[in-house]
């Protein structure tokens, strides 16, 4: 168990600024997930921690030791790659024992470590096979096993589940979380899948364009995103965003949004810095939308209902009330309703929300509503 500390890490690829001033401290035993859209720098950051990619400036410490210029093999890390990167000509056992063999450990110790890891991952029956003879899930286990045998201070995972099918991904997700509890090791995990991030992480690091946007516990990030980007990135279906203009700030924030009656958001952040007339974005999670006619309402036509059994996702056209940047690529409003039969498609609904649930984002993307506490 070791901590990882990044201080002012910068990375340029020629003129491209891949990592911008990254400061991050990861506690011993913590499971940190780095998420962000493709090209946000999350894999680059992981490779920099691994030492596979040199940083331009800044400092990387692992277990209190400055490893900024240390070879990957001497950083006390192990890495699981997206393509698994197993050595194709070695058997499973040789793959898993290779790191120890390079360290010139005695044969008996290598065998014991390989066997122990294989038992944890339930791959003892394929130890003599070559990677080419294994299924995707087995290869993934071997890759994890290879990391375990080296007893690293820190485990690094680079989108390890992205090549697996949905069922296997869920299974491996649970196994990885269990493994983390069992080993108690520090783990840094990169993914673009927000479900993996929300379910596995002690803390999530959201990255965009080489910069850390927000760091925090999954629910904290979900409940209190610092900006429009984090709010839109976490949560599926995605938050509804509506563009509007600020009318008055005398009691909370009163705004006009095309297609809605006047809305007053009750609690603003202390340092909101808003002025009447400012352009703002109103944000509403789909699960905060309702059709019981209470709160601020507007009529809408139900376009499509996806019934998922436990819940239903509704897409409704609300005339002048249009969402921007939705994940469906349409201007429909997304609603997430609990169990129960949704209204028939094509019917007219009164969609509405409680202004206390709403988020407000300033024109530069900052969240300007007051932090929300746990319900």
């Amino acid at each position, binding site marked *: 168990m070791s901590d990882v500390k990044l201080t002012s890490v910068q990375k340029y690829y020629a003129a491209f600024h891949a990592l911008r001033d990254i400061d991050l401290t990861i506690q011993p035993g913590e499971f940190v997930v780095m998420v962000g859209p493709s090209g946000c720098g999350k894999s680059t950051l992981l490779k920099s921690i691994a*030492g596979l990619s040199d940083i331009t400036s800044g400092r990387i410490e692992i277990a209190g030791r400055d490893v900024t210029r240390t070879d990957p093999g001497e950083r006390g890390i192990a890495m699981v790659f997206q393509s698994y990167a197993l050595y194709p000509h070695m058997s499973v056992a040789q793959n898993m024992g290779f790191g120890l063999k*390079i360290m010139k450990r005695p044969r008996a110790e290598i065998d014991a470590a390989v066997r122990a890891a294989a038992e944890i991952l339930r791959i003892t029956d394929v130890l003599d096979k070559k990677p080419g003879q294994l299924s995707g899930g087995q290869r993934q286990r071997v890759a994890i096993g290879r990391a375990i045998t080296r007893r690293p201070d820190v485990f690094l995972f680079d989108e390890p589940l992205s090549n697996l099918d949905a069922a296997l991904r869920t299974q491996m997700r649970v196994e990885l979380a269990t493994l983390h509890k069992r080993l108690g090791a520090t783990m840094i995990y990169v993914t673009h899948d927000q479900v993996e991030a929300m379910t596995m992480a002690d803390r999530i690091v959201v990255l965009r364009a080489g910069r850390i946007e927000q760091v925090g516990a999954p629910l904290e990030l979900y409940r209190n995103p610092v900006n429009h980007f984090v709010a839109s990135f976490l949560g599926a279906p995605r938050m509804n965003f509506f563009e509007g203009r600020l009318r008055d700030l005398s009691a909370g924030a009163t705004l006009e949004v095309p297609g809605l009656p006047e809305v007053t958001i009750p609690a603003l952040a202390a340092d909101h810095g808003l002025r009447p007339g400012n352009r703002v974005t109103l944000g509403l999670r789909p699960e905060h939308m309702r059709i019981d006619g209470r709160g601020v309402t507007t009529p809408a036509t139900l376009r499509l209902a996806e019934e998922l059994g436990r819940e239903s996702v509704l897409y409704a056209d609300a005339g002048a009330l249009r969402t921007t940047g939705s994940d469906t690529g349409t201007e429909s409003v997304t609603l997430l309703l609990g169990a129960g039969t949704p209204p028939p498609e094509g019917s007219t609904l009164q969609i509405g929300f409680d202004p206390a649930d709403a988020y407000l984002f300033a024109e530069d993307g900052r969240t300007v509503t007051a932090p929300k506490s746990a319900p």
Partner: protein
Amino acid sequence: MLRTRRSLRHRATPALLLAPGLLLFLVVIVFSALRTFWISLHAWDGFGPMTWVGLSNYAELWGDPQFWVSLRNNVIWLAVFLLAPPMGLAIALLVNQKIRTMRLAKSLFFMPLVLSTVTVGVIFVWFYDPSYGLLALLFHAFGASPPAVLSSDTWVTFAVVFAALWPQVAFCMILFLAGLNTLDEEIIGAGRVDNARGWQMLRHIVLPQLRQVAFIALAISMIGALRSFDIIAVMTSGGPFGSSTNLAYQMYQESLFSYRFGYGAALATVLFAIMMVFIVWYLLRLLRDERSA
């Protein structure tokens, strides 16, 4: 009815597509080889009637000292050409480093490949020239008198093979460079995380991934060594006194200059038999790899 027609078409398409290549192969390779063997059982000047002599051409070969010199030279070619793949690999590893000037180095190493064998031969004749060649200059620099390698029956074959080795090494280098470019970046990364460095990285992670390429480089070098002919013609014409002649060159001389097509065909058949060993080995490996894939 429908089923049989479909299955017929199923079989007809590959057969049709293979036909042109197969036909060419039958005429140019198989027929020529059989015909050569047939000719080798005759005495023939290339114009007049062929006289059946049975295996006496082969019996004559056995007693011909020039045949043994040629065979020995072919063995030397083979042995020296064995160096081409490892040398090519070494240079490929060197120029594959991400250093600024390596592009220039790469093109320089690549150069002999774009030169024709005749040009390479002529360059090396100059290089070996004992009065004004580069080799002579080197020897003078150390105060020694330069040997006339192309006139020495001890050194001449080595001198010619060395010249032929130059483009062969370049060829192997290109093969290995292509192979190095297809290496899996993440596997190399995994090796670095496992702390494999230098020799261990090369031996355990890089080389196993280059096995296919190494096999092709070796097979092509072996076959190239056996069929070498043109550079001998340019540099020494097989001399002095036949001491740099190999089987291919001897065949050419016997057939076209001594008008002994039967004897030349016997030489060709022996050379073919030797080559078969390598070709069969190559094909068996290829088949085995394909079956396991």
